[in-house]
């Protein structure tokens, strides 16, 4: 029998674990439902939704939905497109936004405060409000590529990448993080003869693991989940990303098992990326000790 006072460590531990388990269940059950449903035929899937069976691999289990999903849509191509667009945008975005953040925090230049305020203001502008002006703009922009000079960026990877490399939130996150770095470290580097580029690349960035991981995760999710912009700018199947591909599965009679199989497949990179960076995030904090 446990004593019900607040000093009982065993009871506190049990309560803590119960709360944590409950929270974990809230997050895990939708994913579990998706994965289990992807293994069931539609009739069973729909019948199971109202019971605990929805979360269990029981009944008529098979990988038929996965096979059918691959037959219905070019999933590999959609995945490749999304990973390419997301990967390039994240890498370039981290570079550009961190440099912008560095400039706002450590360099002195005329109009810095106004420029930073304008960038902050972009955080409250929903993308939907600027989508059409952006569409009109990119449809008329010039491009010099391997196949020569052309007008208009529609139906390309660049139209899905370049407009999203720099964004207000990532710049803001980097700037806020850089503000908390020890000023003495920067000053010492300058006194030792480092150029601003060297300060940025050799001093500041190695100390910025946590914010790089955080910004990467946020940007990855935003890019991987792109839907509105791709349907506006990619009329050719060869450039479509995964979320537009999801629409391939919604017909008059929706094949829910295939939908769940497709969702399971496209969720894997997100989970993998998050888990990979989660480790980097923790390791970065442990190794730098700056934020302690």
């Amino acid at each position, binding site marked *: 029998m446990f004593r019900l006072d607040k000093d009982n460590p065993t009871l506190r531990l049990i309560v803590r674990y119960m709360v944590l388990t409950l929270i974990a269940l809230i997050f895990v059950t939708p994913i579990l439902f998706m994965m289990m449903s992807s293994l069931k035929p*539609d*009739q069973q899937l*729909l*019948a199971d*939704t*109202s019971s605990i069976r929805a979360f269990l691999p029981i009944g008529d289990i098979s990988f038929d939905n996965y096979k059918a999903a691959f*037959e*219905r*849509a070019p999933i590999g191509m959609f995945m490749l497109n999304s990973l390419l667009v997301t990967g390039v945008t994240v890498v370039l975005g981290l570079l550009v936004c961190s440099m912008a953040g560095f400039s706002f925090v450590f360099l002195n230049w005329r109009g810095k405060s106004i420029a930073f305020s304008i960038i902050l203001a972009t955080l409250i502008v929903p993308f939907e409000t600027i989508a*059409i002006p952006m*569409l*009109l703009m990119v*449809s008329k922009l010039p491009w010099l590529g391997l196949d020569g000079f052309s007008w*208009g960026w*529609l139906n390309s990877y660049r139209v899905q990448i370049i407009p999203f490399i720099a964004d207000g939130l990532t710049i803001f996150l980097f700037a806020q993080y850089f503000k908390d770095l020890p000023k003495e470290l920067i000053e010492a580097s300058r006194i030792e003869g480092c150029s601003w580029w060297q300060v940025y690349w050799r001093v500041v960035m190695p100390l910025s693991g946590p914010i790089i991981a955080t910004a990467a995760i946020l940007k990855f999710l935003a890019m991987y989940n792109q*839907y*509105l912009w791709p*349907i*506006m*700018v990619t*009329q*050719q*199947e060869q450039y479509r990303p995964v979320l*537009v*591909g999801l*629409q*391939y*599965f*919604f*017909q*008059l*009679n929706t094949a829910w098992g295939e939908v769940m199989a497709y969702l399971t497949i496209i969720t894997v990179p997100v989970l993998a990326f998050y888990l990979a960076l989660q480790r980097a995030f923790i390791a970065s904090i442990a190794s730098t000790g700056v934020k302690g």
Partner: protein
Amino acid sequence: MKITKNLALTLLSAGALGSAFVSTCAFAKTDLSLWYHGAGNKVEAKVINQIVNDFNRSQSDWNVVLESFPQGSYNDSVVAAALANNLPDILDVDGPVMPNWAWAGYLRPLLIDKNKIADFLPGVKGYWDGKLYSIGLWDSAVAMVTRRSTLNEVGARIPTIDSPWTEEEFNGVLKKLKATGKYDYPLDLGMAESGEWFPYAFSPFLQSFGGDLIDRSTYKTAEGTLNGPEAIAFGEWWQSLFVNGYAPGNSQDPADHETGLLEGKYAMQWYGNWAALKTLNKFGDDALFLPAPDFGHGPKIGAASWQFGVSAASKHPQGASDFIEFALQDKYLAAFSDSLGVIPPTQSAATLTTNYRQGGALSVFYVLSKAQALVRPVTPGYIVEAKVFEKALADIADGADVADTLDSAADEINADIEKNRGYSR
């Protein structure tokens, strides 16, 4: 000697190149881009690809290049392409949306021989402003789906096209079915669906009561049609379905909508021909596809599905129209019908199909389409009217005051018409 040899070689090369150029020109075809909403539907893709391939082989002027889009994002893609001046030559358009796209300048009238579509069901002909802008290769219809044994059990008369249920009879059937206690609900209206389903499936009830989304004589106001006495009578009847527990409301589980009738949770279902085959497979001869009830102004069902049109941006409208005319052959209409279960638009195509030929399992839908179909309001403002109507019906189902809700809906539609200067060209 060497110079002569080189000259001869040069002339030979030039001759060969010239010949190749002429030969290439002789076989050069002009590309026509075609956008289609069926990405992800393998069966549909097979038929449309067959038509494209047959057309490309049948003549030497045009080469149609197909690009398929997923249906859920198709309209957004087209509107975005129109803004970016990037429309294709040929595109398909949902029937009720066509007037908006024609009004917005996305479409141009078709250049096809009208005699070739004289026998087509009225619902598949996309006329607006007196001009033919689009033509469908199939139509769809809804019916009251149930089982003969279900109706016999409560002693209900089985209605026919000539003698559909009256409002009183229909309500009586619902009451009796409810009283059996065997079903979660007597009727599944498909409230789990959203979007175009509401105006497509439910505005015919309103029209049968004598109301409408808009005054079709002018298309300038919804006052009196969407909030007049007939519309209010419809709204009160609509609300009674949910108050009396005859139909599941807005929170209906989509899974129940998919399987409820088949599993015996619902006694009847108001649903379309595209889902009819699974009902037939489950119930066989016991399955019934009944006409819409007559609420006083004749039984009505919706009409007009996806149709083909030519973009206003096309530099080759004749070639684009030629392709559409080519696609109107009975064999293709029948192929779509057999593959997708849709209704062929001509009797001659119907006779080629498995399900819609005389005595075919789904032939009743062709008859229903011919006898009861009423296209949704043929106006550019329809796309707003549809959304306003959907919200009003959902609110009324949730218990909102009928008169107030329909008044607000009519005001909203009128405000949109005014904002767009009457949708005049």
